[in-house]
């Protein structure tokens, strides 16, 4: 049984294989009845729009159906049931589980109690492998993944997408430039792990200092819920903003990515530039998740 829990579990060959399959899906080279008669269970203990809907779309396009747990308040979780028990029970209802949960390691735990494959759709500040795969897929459509110089900008402390992406890119010899407001820098454990994987991280205090050297700029939002006071949130959130003028300092081939939703960190005027790839990135979520569902259930 194949679970997809963390990019740390994926060798480069496995990632390349999933991205190749996503490319075939995008080119309409897939069986629309591959998962006919199969049921995907969606268990989202935290809010989600893109991830949940793109998994539902992916399942429908492969001929299967989705069952949604609904809100936590309307489920047995509200009665105090453990995740482990929930997973054991619903394993009898569905053919695969997509799980988002606020606790780190929840998907790993679920995989130990499930009798069907589990896909991690985000666990706290931990892993979000389907997001990472679609990030890689979007980059690969513009340039080879090997030897990239990527800038990670924003909340690098709590932002799980940047952690997963950095770990995955270490398999491709990336150089990482980290630009974060004070207090939201990459955790030392991640920096150490990247160093152990042979990937150097250079820290910058302003994106202007490094943008001219980048192939990819990966922007994330500051999460308001991390700040107890609105004023401190606004101070940090307004400390960077990607504008057409800033993108003008970059090399022409540099692309701008963002896992979305964005707030104010990217000026809407950037959307019209050829460098802006974040909406394409979101659209690729369906192809990549179709590849993942094929992998675990096909």
């Amino acid at each position, binding site marked *: 049984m194949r679970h997809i829990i963390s990019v740390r579990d994926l060798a480069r060959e496995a990632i390349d294989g999933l991205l190749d399959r996503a490319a075939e899906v995008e080119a309409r080279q897939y069986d629309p009845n591959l998962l006919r008669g199969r049921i995907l269970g969606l268990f989202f203990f935290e809010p989600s729009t893109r991830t949940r809907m793109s998994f539902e779309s992916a399942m429908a396009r492969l001929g299967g159906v989705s069952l949604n747990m609904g809100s936590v308040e309307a489920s047995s979780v509200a009665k105090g049931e453990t995740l482990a028990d929930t997973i054991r029970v619903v394993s009898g209802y569905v053919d695969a589980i997509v799980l988002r949960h606020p*606790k*780190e*390691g929840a998907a790993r735990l679920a995989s130990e109690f499930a009798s069907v494959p589990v896909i991690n759709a985000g666990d706290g500040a931990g892993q979000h492998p389907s997001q990472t795969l679609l990030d890689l897929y979007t980059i690969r459509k513009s340039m080879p993944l090997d030897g990239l110089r990527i800038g990670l900008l924003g909340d690098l402390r709590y932002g799980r997408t940047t952690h997963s992406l950095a770990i995955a890119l270490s398999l491709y010899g990336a150089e990482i430039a980290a630009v974060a407001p004070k207090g939201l820098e990459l955790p030392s454990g991640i920096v150490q792990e990247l160093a152990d994987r042979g990937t150097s991280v250079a820290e910058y205090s302003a994106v202007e200092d490094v943008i001219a050297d980048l192939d990819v700029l990966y922007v994330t939002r500051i999460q308001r819920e991390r700040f107890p006071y609105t004023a401190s949130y606004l101070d940090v959130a307004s400390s960077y903003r990607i504008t057409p003028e800033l993108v003008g300092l970059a090399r022409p081939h540099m692309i701008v990515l963002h896992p979305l939703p964005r707030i104010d960190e990217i000026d809407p005027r950037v959307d019209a530039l050829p460098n802006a790839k974040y909406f394409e990135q979101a659209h690729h979520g369906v192809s990549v998740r179709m590849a993942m569902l094929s992998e675990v259930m096909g």
Partner: protein
Amino acid sequence: MTHDGPQGLLISPIRHGTVIDHITAGQALNVLRILGITGTTTEEVSVATNVASGRVGRKDIVKIENRELCKEEVDRIALLAPDATINIIREFTVIEKKGVEHPHELLGVVRCPNPGCISNTAEPARSRFIVVPNGLRCHYCDWLISKEIAAHIL
């Protein structure tokens, strides 16, 4: 007080049990914690700390009566005292002497310091850490413990 005569043994020999020698100085009590030996357990235990040693300068020694450590227990000690040697004693005789090896993983030994980790909830998740070159990595949340491992022993 004089020391003219032969000095007595710092700790008397044991009849049956385990002697853990060459423990990194200062780590004896942590070794006992990692073995789950506390004031509420029944083992008869002798501890010597900062004993002069020709091999490592200073060392700690622990003797545990009537308990022979199994390999899993012995390997846990490697995290705190990589140079420790384990002597299994029967009828005052060393019948087995072995070093310690780093285990591949630790089950139920260390608490994950990440408050957001699923292993720190009411879920049936037993603490599980993978031993990596620079410390311990939580099996669930990937948190890395790279220093002061003893502070996280359950």
